[in-house]
Structures are given as C-alpha cells and as structure tokens.
C-alpha cells in the first residue's frame, strides 16, 4: 500500500477491540490533524489505552482500521513504528537500568552509533534536567523524574507522532506542571501528540481538539470551549459556616442562578453558573442576606459533570465493570 499524503496525522475509522465478552473499544473514529495536540478524554476503562495501543501497532484491531501519517497500522506496522513513539501508562523505561543506560539502549536500537547514542543521551538528560541523576537506577527516581525520562526516551529520535497515555496520572502538581510545559514545547515544535487523559483540566490546558470516550465509543468531539459550553459552563460552590442557614442560602442561589444541585454535605451547596460575574453577584447577595460563608469557588465543569451531561451517568458508575475490561486488556498484554 502506498502512503497517501494526508493532512490528518491519525485517522481511525470504526476501530473495534474485544477482550472476551467485553468490547473495550466499540467503533471509535478519530481524525487528528497534523501538528496539534489532540486529547482523548475518558474515565478509567473507557477504552483509551486500548485505542492508543491499536494506533501504536501494539494491538491488532478486531474490526475497522487506522492510518498514522498515511500508513496502515496493521499492513504497514513497521513504517508506523519508524515514525511514532509511545509513552505508556506504566512507565515505558527499564527500571533496572540507569537513566543514561536507558537512553543509550534506545539510541542503539534506533540505529545511532555507539558515540552518537551516548551524545544524544547526554543531550536529552541535560535538556530534561536529569543530568545529575543520569547514573542512578530508574527504580530510585521520583515519579516526576521517571515521567521526564520516559518522555526523553520517546525523543531519542524525535517522532512525528507521539502517543502519551495518561502522562500525569499519579504525579504531584509541580511535576504535572513540568510535564505540561514539556508537552507544550513539543507541540510548539510541530510534533503531533495524541494525549489520553482522565482529567478535563489537562485536556483543556493542552489540547486543541478533544474526543470524549465512554464505554469504547466516542460520545462527543470538539474544542475544549465547545465541550464545556455543551455542558453549560461551570458551577458556583459554597461552603456555609452554619448548615442551619441552608434554606436561606438555597433561596438566594435559586433566585440568582436559577437552581441548586443536590449535595450530600449539608454545609455545601452548588449551583450551575456559566458566567463568573453572576457567580460573584450571587455570593454578594448571600452576604447581604446574612448567610455566613466559610469559602466559595467558581469552578469549571469537572469530568464527572461533563459525563453526567453527555451520558446521563457519572464517570464513576461503571468503574467496577470497566476495570474488569482493563484487567482483561492487561492480561491480554501479558
């Protein structure tokens, strides 16, 4: 098959992958433009990892197909492998080697000579501020350092398309920001990045386009702005000093913002609120009504809210079942 030049870096149509009875991926279509960061957003077990593994040639689709930079992921798997790199959910580096050895190993496997591999490793360790830890075993790295090494390992020979599977899951906020900065720099350099994440915030920060995926299907697609607009913006969250004042607070908020969401904690209230100005006004009205406020925040919709709005069920609901699917997929890997 010839490589058809395409403005799309990744093009998937009707991808299906089942593990036993569980259809982990159930007809996913994706169209990722070249040179952009594209987010695949969904809860645990939605089928993100399985999708990315098919695109990275690690799993063969049961049905449907995909092309990466014009190459079929099944028939031209080797051509695809020469152009992509994968940073998996489990850190894709060898924990029993040092950081330096990891990068030299990959350099050699990717065709660099002995000296070139060494030099390239040193250059990347320097660029990712890992030079001091170069000689330490990776199993002694912190989570953030491991992730940085993982991404550096993906760049030994710079790929045209990069797959990042939940690159910040389990990282502290500082390390997460560092990884975000790295992703921005990579995207600025023209690399196409497919980013799987379960954080709306992360997709919002980094991605130009987002596909929301649930139970193996794409259930919504668009820019972060469109997606949030479809959910109806954010919410005002208020915590009362005195739960006894809840009826008063509810009355004020319904008056200002139209409705109040159910909350389990009697001291907490939230109300849908798309415009910050109206939220500020509502807080001022609470104060004038003599309702004591411990704290308040005006938040973007969470992934849960997006899910609730798009699917009618919260993201958490299917955890148990979906984690089974994920476990099966892991077993398939092993």
């Amino acid at each position: 098959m010839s490589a058809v030049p395409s403005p799309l870096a990744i093009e998937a149509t009707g991808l299906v992958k089942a593990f036993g009875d569980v259809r982990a991926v159930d007809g996913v279509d994706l169209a990722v433009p070249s040179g952009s960061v594209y987010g695949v957003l969904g809860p645990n077990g939605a089928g993100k990892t399985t999708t990315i593994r098919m695109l990275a040639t690690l799993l063969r689709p049961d049905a449907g197909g995909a092309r990466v930079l014009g190459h079929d992921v099944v028939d031209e798997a080797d051509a695809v492998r020469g152009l992509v790199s994968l940073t998996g959910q489990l850190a894709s580096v060898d924990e029993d080697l040092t950081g330096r050895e990891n990068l030299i190993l990959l350099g050699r496997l990717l065709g660099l000579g002995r000296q070139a591999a060494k030099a390239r490793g040193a250059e990347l360790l320097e660029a990712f501020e890992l030079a001091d830890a170069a000689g330490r075993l990776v199993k002694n790295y912190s989570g953030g350092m491991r992730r940085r090494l993982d991404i550096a390992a993906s760049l030994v020979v710079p790929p045209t398309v990069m797959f990042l599977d939940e690159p910040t899951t389990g990282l502290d906020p500082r390390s997460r920001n560092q990884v975000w900065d790295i992703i921005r720099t990579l995207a600025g350099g023209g690399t196409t990045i497919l980013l799987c994440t379960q954080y709306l915030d992360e997709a919002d920060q980094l991605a130009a386009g987002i596909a929301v995926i649930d139970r193996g299907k794409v259930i919504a697609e668009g820019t972060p702005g469109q997606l949030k607009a479809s959910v109806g913006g954010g919410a005002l969250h208020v915590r009362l000093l005195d739960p006894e004042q809840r009826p008063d607070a509810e009355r004020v908020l319904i008056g200002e913002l139209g409705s109040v969401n159910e909350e389990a904690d009697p001291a907490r209230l939230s109300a849908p609120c798309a415009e910050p100005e109206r939220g500020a006004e509502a807080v001022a009205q609470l104060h004038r009504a003599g309702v004591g406020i411990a704290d308040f925040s005006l938040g973007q919709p969470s992934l849960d809210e997006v899910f609730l709005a798009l699917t009618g069920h919260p993201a958490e609901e299917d955890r148990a079942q979906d984690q089974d699917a994920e476990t099966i997929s892991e077993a398939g890997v092993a």
Partner: protein
Amino acid sequence: MTANPTTRDRQPAAFDERALRKALATTPRPPRANALTAAVTFGWRGMLKVKHVPEQLLDVTITPVMFVLMFTYLFGGAIEGSTADYLNYILPGVLVMSVLFTTVYSGVALNTDLTKGVIDRFRTLPIWRPAPLVGALLGDSVRYLIAGTVIIVVGVILGFRPDAGVGGVLAALALVVVFAFGLSWVFTTLGLLLRSPNAVMNAGFMGIFPLTFLSNVFVDPETLPAGLEAFVDVNPISILATASRGLMEGSAEASDIVIVLAVAAALTAVFAPLTTRLYRKA
C-alpha cells in the same frame, strides 16, 4: 475561570526549554539498526542488569557448587567405590544439569519483563522482531558460561583432571552452552504462555527435573530396568552428558555431538519462531 489558580504560578522549570527545542531540531533520522546490532544491544541490556544486581548470579554459582559437593561426597563412595572416580563421572553430568537448570530462568525473566511497561516501548521500535528475545538469550548464554565455569573450577579444585585437558573442557562447555541456548527457547515459549513468573518456574522445573534425573547424568543406566534404560539411552540429556564426558576425556563420538547439535537446532527451529509470534501478539 477558577477561584484557585492552578497552573500559571511559575516554578523553576524542570527542563531547559531552549535545550529541548535544540534537541528536537537537530537530529536527522538515522538508518535502522541492523538485526545483529539490535540483538547484541539487548544482550548488553541483560549484562547491565547483572552488573547492577550481581546477587542474581548466586543461583547460577552457589547451587552448582552444592550439587558437586553433595553428589561427590554423599553418593560417590556408594556408587563408584571412591569419590575420586565418581567425580570424574559426575562432573560433566553436573555441568550439564546446572546449565540446563539455568535455562528455566530465561523463561522466568521474560515473563517478568512482560509485566513491565518497557516492553511496550520495545515492541513499538522499528527493529528486527526477534531481537529482544535473541538478545536476551545471548545475554543468558553468558550466565550459562559462568555457571559452567564455576562447576569446572570447583571440580578441578576437588581433583578433577580430565584427559583431554583445557581444550577438551572448553569444547564440552561450548557444546553444553549451545544446547542450553536451544533448550531455553522452550522456556521462553512457556514464559509467554503462562501467567506468572512462578508458574513458569514450577512448570519449567517439573519438566527439566525428571528429564535430567532420567538420564545418565548421575548413574550408569546399565543397572536400570530395561524400559527405563531404553528411555535414558535416547534422552537427549544423556547424549549431551555422554558427549561432554567424551570431549573431556578425549573419546567423544562424532555421532553424539551431531545429535546434540541437531536437537539444539530443532528446538530453536520450532520454538524460536513460536516465541517470536507469541511475543508479537502478547
């Protein structure tokens, strides 16, 4: 808009943005690594692991020493009349046994590797598909060599003086390592089929243990019941032990050596492609 700003508070960056841009810009894509380079690189990976955790060599060094001491002094007098005579008989046999036992660990190591994320990276590299497996076994062959050398050194210390001298001993060692390379493909296949490193270990030893004991490694099969003797005579491990003894004593029969090499080649021909297939689909 959020009440608690999340991202834009500037911390010292964990990377040098300019250096990163430069690192991204300057690299032309090198030609693909050839099959040999890829395999040898994976062998180097195996060696590095030994370098970082040298304790893992204990099982390939201590156990064989124990076997030599135990069999020579415990059974030597009873079986052969004197420990010195028995040492000459058993040393090539224990060499065979301990190296073959080590092959089970190749399957265990591969199974352990599969639970790690790095395997995904290897499988998305544009390299010769069997390279990670061939490379790992090349690295393991070095372990086999170490195990074998330890046995021979211990034997020499205890008074083992083979007639064919250093050359014969080296030839026997080489033959055993070649056979072990072929046999370890069986265990890498097992390593990809079973679910846990422990299962691989158990299944592996369940196979290799009886096969080794039902051979002429420890005793001359002439005293065995006829049916058992017939089995022992065709057991490739017996033939390997006989060939090793022959090489060390300078009386090896070419036919034995040919059979051993043929069995190693056959095992490789069947199980290497099988392992590669399973690895690709894993």
